[in-house]
């Protein structure tokens, strides 16, 4: 709110409807990921491979659709299978070994980074998978993933709609289903959760696969929207997702947070990123600003945790 008011007062473009559509766009793809990453963080884990996974899925769509000349929906399905497999592998390794998910997914992050580059070069001979617009069925895929909705004469990206739906769905699952209860419990105290019969392993693996599914969705959106994908797509984004989730109130230690909060975190990110451009400030300040917000958010989260544990003994 404060951030919106600040930029809206300073820049007329920012507060115009087309300005809103502009800063909602980066917020939307980030938001879809942040919501999934927030669920995972509430469940007590990190996924550092989430960012590069958007690249992996986007490249898969490009390579299968263009190099193998398949229908684009088949390519999208293949990308989903790949994403789910990576998500399952992450979750399975974490639950099997008991090692911190930070390290496990750092491993998959590096592996995927290498695979993205190596396989793209192998199949296309370059570091880009291009020409997706020419694939069979591109029109329908574009309609689902990259169309524009006109509201009051201003075009909004359809990803904004998907983002709102993802946030609503995640909120419902967290607060109104058994699975949601298990997510909080697994992140809060895994041993205690298991003692009362919560299938903690299954919950964790499902969460990693959920994050992978979100990465698939965002990856496909990127591939369809841009029609060409760089092999380094998504690298570095994984930390931004975590930042958005933390700004939105997720505890780094798990067991607390919300999907709506993560969405707001993504919104703040989008507003800040474009707001600085509209003000014609040096874009270098963006990361400084983001860092300040992250620190403030973490300090606020610490108060929440203190409050909840005040009477613990």
């Amino acid at each position, binding site marked *: 709110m404060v951030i919106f008011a600040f930029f809206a007062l300073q820049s007329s473009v920012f507060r115009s409807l087309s300005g809103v559509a502009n800063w909602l766009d980066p917020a939307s793809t980030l938001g879809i990921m942040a919501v999934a990453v927030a669920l995972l963080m509430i469940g007590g884990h990190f996924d550092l491979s989430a960012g590069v996974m958007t690249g992996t899925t986007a490249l898969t769509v490009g390579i299968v659709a263009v190099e193998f000349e398949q229908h684009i929906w088949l390519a999208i399905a293949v990308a989903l299978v790949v994403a789910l497999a990576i998500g399952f592998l992450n979750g399975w390794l974490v639950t099997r070994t008991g090692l911190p998910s930070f390290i496990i997914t750092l491993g998959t992050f590096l592996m995927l980074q290498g695979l993205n580059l190596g396989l793209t070069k192998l199949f296309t001979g370059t570091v880009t998978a291009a020409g997706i617009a020419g694939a069979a069925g591109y029109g329908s895929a574009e309609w689902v993933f990259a169309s524009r909705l006109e509201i009051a004469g201003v075009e909004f990206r359809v990803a904004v709609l998907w983002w709102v739906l993802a946030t609503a769905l995640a909120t419902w699952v967290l607060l109104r289903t058994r699975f949601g209860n298990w997510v*909080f419990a697994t992140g*809060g*105290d895994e041993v205690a959760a298991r003692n009362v*019969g*919560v299938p903690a392993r299954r919950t964790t693996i499902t969460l990693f696969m959920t994050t992978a599914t979100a990465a698939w969705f965002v990856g496909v959106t990127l591939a369809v929207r841009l029609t060409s994908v760089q092999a380094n797509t998504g690298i570095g984004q994984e930390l931004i997702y975590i930042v958005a989730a933390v700004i939105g109130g997720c505890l780094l230690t798990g067991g607390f947070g919300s999907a709506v909060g993560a969405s707001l975190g993504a919104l703040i990110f989008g507003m800040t990123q474009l707001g600085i451009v509209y003000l014609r400030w040096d874009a270098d300040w963006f990361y400084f600003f983001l860092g300040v917000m992250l620190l403030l958010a973490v300090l606020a989260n610490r108060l929440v*945790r203190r*409050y*909840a*544990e005040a009477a613990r003994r």
Partner: protein
Amino acid sequence: MTDAVRGSGAAPLLELRGVGKDFGSVIALDGISTTVRAGEVTCVLGDNGAGKSTLIKVLAGVHPPDRGEVLLDGAPVSFGAPRDALDAGIATVYQDLAMIPLMAIWRNFFLGAEPTRGRGPFRRFDSATAKETTRRELLAMGIDIRDPDQPVGTLSGGERQSVAIARAVHFGARVLILDEPTSALGVKQAGIVLRYISQARDRGVGVVFITHNPHHAHPVGDRFLLLGRGRSLGDFAKGEVSVEEITRLMAGGAELAELTTELERSPSPES
């Protein structure tokens, strides 16, 4: 109802006959016999290493006994897993309570056994029922929770024990095993927990109260099993034994007397 079951004629809810358990060559438990009746509290007393934890684990189905018999309603039973004991109505409230501090009381209450409504993809956690049931069950135990939405972490230690007890009773526990529920608490908090133990007893639950504090056990206990180094030091009914006698037996009688004399004498060289 309670008085009828209390009659000596009916078979006890749970009975141990000469139960023993070895870990390799170490005899952790040997020749333990006692009874747990509906609407009564059986206290298991012992110092550290007396075999209290092993006894809990035998009753909770974690370890099968190597010798002797466990009888439920007069019929011998053997539990292969904690789930079997739970299904038979034997619930254990461990010291760590299996509660998530950052979660609301009602969410904790139903954790792992959430009521649902709707079907298919619309099957959802019936939070209205869960909140209502939590409030009702806690009130029935005499626990007045201001707000079932508050996180468990904001409750005092005694209140949390009480919620754990209410949860076990709600999910059909006929025998409730409490592992040192008062040991980490102050005097006042321990008193609150003792009151809830008696509440559970009055609702017809057979309670096994494990403690090393005779002063906590004596006021609520109907039966006292004293353990020392894995063996029974005595199994008494209420009135057969005093607090002082329990303390003396637990500490190993003569040893304590010796220690007392030693401690009383020790300041003399200084003066």
